[in-house]
């Protein structure tokens, strides 16, 4: 292992926000994983006699308006948030990074066209674009995920192009070109590995935004549809029972905030570790 890599790993373990973020993110994935096989109760099983019950030794976080165990629904809801986040970020990376790399490598009209198209998508607030696409294609988790993925494409395209252009003027790229390597091989073999860290940092930020957007769309009733457990819809359902059991609205919101916070902390930490100048200057 190189000295630089060893020092980065050491600084990662001594970076507080990275550590907290990483532990929380691992816990989030862990809960989602566990809920695939086990939850305290069946999250879809109705139990009307025990509806809107407060926290107890049996139901740690109480029950909802249908008597379902809130902890179990929250646990399964983690799967939904992670799935939407992963797929949306994958869409953003797949198309955005490809477009950004192409723009930086080909330049000229292609670059101009890709960047102006990105600017156009940026003119739309992300949630408006998602709502518009859902209006055209219909509500549902898949359409919401695709819509969220689409609005992260210009983010990755801009970031990748900017980072790639910096690498394209470096001497080792000139050497690769002199050795006869084509633009595609240079992009895949030299440019992409050198900008991967920047993309990973942005991916954590977009992941957090995707979780927020999915929750917002589900809250509005145009994201994940019943019976798929979703934190956003839990909040929407809780609003009707806010006078009877205010805690119903607290848990899913706290879950969303914690998930977003952990990803933001992880992203901030990664950025500091990858680019230590940032820490010193800020």
């Amino acid at each position: 292992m190189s000295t630089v890599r060893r020092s980065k790993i050491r600084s990662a373990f001594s970076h507080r926000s990275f550590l907290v973020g990483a532990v929380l993110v691992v816990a989030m994935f862990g809960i989602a994983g566990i809920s695939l096989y086990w939850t305290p109760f069946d999250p879809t099983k109705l139990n009307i006699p025990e509806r809107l019950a407060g926290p107890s030794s049996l139901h740690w976080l109480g029950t909802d308006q249908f008597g379902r165990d809130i902890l179990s629904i929250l646990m399964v809801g983690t799967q939904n948030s992670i799935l939407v986040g992963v797929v949306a970020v994958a869409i953003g990376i797949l198309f955005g990074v490809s477009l950004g790399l192409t723009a930086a490598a080909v330049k000229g009209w292609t670059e101009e066209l890709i960047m102006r198209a990105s600017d156009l998508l940026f003119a739309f607030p992300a949630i408006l674009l998602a709502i518009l696409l859902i209006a055209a294609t219909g509500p549902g988790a898949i359409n919401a995920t695709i819509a969220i993925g689409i609005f992260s494409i210009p983010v990755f395209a801009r970031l990748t192009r900017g980072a790639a252009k910096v690498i394209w003027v470096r001497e080792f790229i000139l050497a690769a070109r002199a050795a006869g390597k084509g633009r595609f091989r240079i992009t895949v073999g030299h440019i992409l590995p050198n900008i991967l860290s920047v993309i990973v940092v942005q991916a954590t930020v977009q992941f957090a935004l995707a979780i927020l957007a999915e929750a917002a769309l589900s809250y509005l009733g145009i994201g994940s549809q019943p019976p798929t457990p979703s934190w956003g819809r839990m909040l929407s359902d809780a609003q009707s029972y806010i006078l009877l059991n205010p805690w119903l609205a607290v848990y899913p919101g706290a879950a969303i905030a914690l998930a977003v916070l952990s990803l933001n902390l992880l992203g901030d930490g990664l950025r500091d570790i990858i680019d230590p100048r940032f820490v010193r200057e800020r």
Partner: protein
Amino acid sequence: MSLFLAKRLFTFVLTLVGASLLIFLALEVLPGDPALVILGVDAPESAVAALRLELGLEKPLPQQYWDWVGGLMVGRFGTSYSYSVSVLDLISARLAVTIPLAVFAMILSVAFAFALGILAAVQHNKGTDVAVMGISQLGISIPNFWLALILIMLFAVDLHWFSAGGFPGWAGFWPGFKALVLPAIALATVQGAILARFTRSAILDTIREDYVRTARAKGLTRTQALLRHVLRNAMIPLITIMGLQFANLLAGTIIVENVFSLPGIGRLLLQAITQRDLVIVRDLALLLAAMVIVVNFLVDVLYSVIDPRLTARDI
């Protein structure tokens, strides 16, 4: 300066045209028949055919696009399928809620961000700085619709200071203003938290400049130097961020208006989607996008006024 403005104006018009094309294509060309979307898949074929004719869907696409955009340019909006009135009438009543809400939220966000950002920068690396950064990190992570519910629980349900939702209109200023307080706080918190971080960074960047040191050497106090030199220069990058934030605030109204049952544009848009009224969706989406594009254009112009170097470089 005029060349700079001409270039910005050209980009502005181009972006508007692009946005209208994008909205049109998203709603007209994506898989699915708009008439079927409006009436539902079980609708009789004759009704679908009649609606297709009414909506002009039988015409070629460029003709449909021109009919729509040309109509909007002369103030001829579409007629809502579900309300049977002009979309313009629907919009104008609701703008009286959405615009004051967005402006109110923006003022709160800027006040909150500047207070915290300046405090954090002045107390750099001290306990206050760490606390402010922690608060802003939390603020960024909290979904605005959750915060809205928490505010309702605290200030409407428990303390009875504000109503839990609804809007009494502008017949009296105070009741209307009071109805927008909680929604504006819910909207402003997230944007304010983001702006506080940018404010802190911009001030830290500026505070180390030579001219600030010179100002202090000339005998200015820290506060005087901060107010006269640091803040003015730190404003340059912050104005761009504020422009982008206004766009996010407008988009945020879609969600917050629904939480508080405010009869604004955002609520109308969502109702139109659930009622499958694509005429409203199309006009409203363009209106919201146009508002964002106009704000960004104004920010560009303002930016050039504040920093004349930009204009010179651009030309």
